[in-house]
């Protein structure tokens, strides 16, 4: 309990909330690292997921591959990339991007696979080109699941982005590594609290985004039991 109050005291020190090394600046860096890493992951995961989901083939292989990828320890991967790329933010960015890929990819292809196969088939039969089937039919219908994948990926990355401070002076992880080195556990706990708050804020934001995506995919609220469902007229 005293550690928690020490952490609060640490947070309350006036100088911490301003300047280039202050909490707001580090939070912004942390968010930037998270955003760029998820974006990098998406550059790989979204096209790959669309390919697998649209073809409805190879999902088993991809799932197995991603299961393997999820098991890769991030700290080990970061060390490997760090030895290759040296000190700086590049190695953690790459590590975090690799971390984001499985959730993003699973979101995209499982979102596609969850669509009743008859719908894209029918769209093709009335004359939509393959690209139009993806953009006008499959992506909007898969959107809630895709955003679900984005949500999972973002939460994993925002928590793990503390590792950025392992090879660079970047983000909120600095408080953890600095605290560990100097046995300043109040600082470590305070840093963790900020990361948790950030994760919760992102979670709320992405949950709202997911609700918006559901409105795109299901504007009639038919799959939402609490949603209003206009009476079905019985005449044909």
């Amino acid at each position, binding site marked *: 309990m005293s550690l928690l109050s020490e952490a609060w005291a640490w947070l309350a020190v006036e100088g911490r909330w301003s300047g280039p090394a202050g909490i707001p600046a580090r939070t912004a860096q942390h968010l930037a690292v998270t955003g760029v890493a998820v974006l990098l992951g998406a550059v790989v995961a979204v096209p790959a997921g669309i390919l697998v989901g649209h073809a409805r083939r190879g999902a088993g292989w991809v799932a197995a591959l991603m299961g393997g990828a999820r098991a890769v320890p991030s700290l080990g991967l970061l060390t490997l990339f760090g030895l290759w790329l040296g000190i700086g933010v590049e190695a953690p960015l790459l590590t975090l991007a690799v971390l984001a890929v499985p959730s993003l990819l699973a979101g995209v292809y499982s979102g596609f696979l969850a669509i009743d196969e*008859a*719908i894209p*088939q*029918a*769209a*093709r*039969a*009335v*004359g*939509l*080109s393959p690209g*139009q089937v993806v953009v*006008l*039919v499959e992506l*909007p*219908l898969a959107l809630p699941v895709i955003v679900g994948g984005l949500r999972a990926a973002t939460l994993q990355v925002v928590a793990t982005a503390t590792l950025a401070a392992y090879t660079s002076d970047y983000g909120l992880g600095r408080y953890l590594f600095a605290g560990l080195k100097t046995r300043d556990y109040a600082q470590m706990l305070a840093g963790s609290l900020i990361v948790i708050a950030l994760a919760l804020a992102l979670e709320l934001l992405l949950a709202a985004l997911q609700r918006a995506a559901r409105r*795109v*995919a*299901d*504007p*009639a609220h*038919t799959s939402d039991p609490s949603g209003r*469902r*206009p009476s*079905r*007229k*019985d*005449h*044909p």
Partner: protein
Amino acid sequence: MIEFEHVAKHYPDGTVAVRDFSLTVPSHRCVVLLGSSGSGKTTLLRMVNRMVDPTGGRVLIDDADVRDSDPVALRRSIGYVLQSGGLLPHRTVADNVATVPLLTGATRRAARSRALELLGRVGLDESLAQRYPAQLSGGQQQRVGVARALAADPNILLMDEPFGAVDPLVRRELQDELLRLQSDLGKTILFVTHDVDEAFRLGDEVIVLRPQAEIAQRGTSVEILAQPADDFVRGFIGADRGRRSLRLATSGGRQVAVDLEGHAVGILE
């Protein structure tokens, strides 16, 4: 006019969906492919708009091999109605009907007014235009499917068991509606069904198919009823079980037609 010239469809695993099928569907006529599942009837239908490419033979539309046309352009020029409706669940009824005109460059305004006009044509109230497919009954969804197929004013309509998923009463209404539309529009219709009564009601000509799309008999409903070609056809249309043979019984001074299974089917006027 649609012509099938010795078309075949063999799948790599050795399955033969269509062995050797030839047929001419004359313009402005409704031809029904009648067969049970596995007869290859849907495969034949899907060859016309290149959803399936034959492994042998050719399909011609107005003397042009469909293989020479771009599949997407070809599909947009042909109306297609599916069993489940195949509507886009995230688009309104009006947008569903306007799908193809919008893709081919019609303005939103023109496509919309065309969609409303077509909804009227297939017997739907304009107030349904802003609903979503899931908010309609099965019969209404099928009507929207027909309206969508008519949106680009195609010469050819392909109908793949379009009324298979609705209850018999609604199916009857939809069939009436199709007959009425057809007498107005005179499209070339290729219609696939396993329902004998539906085939006899709608088809100017009915093609009874055996497995692998072998033609068991072709003709008008009257010809097929009067002279079933063989036991297969007799069995398929129910003639072997007495469903198609009627005798007269008298009840209360009126003559009632009864089939050989003993079910009353109508009154003789």
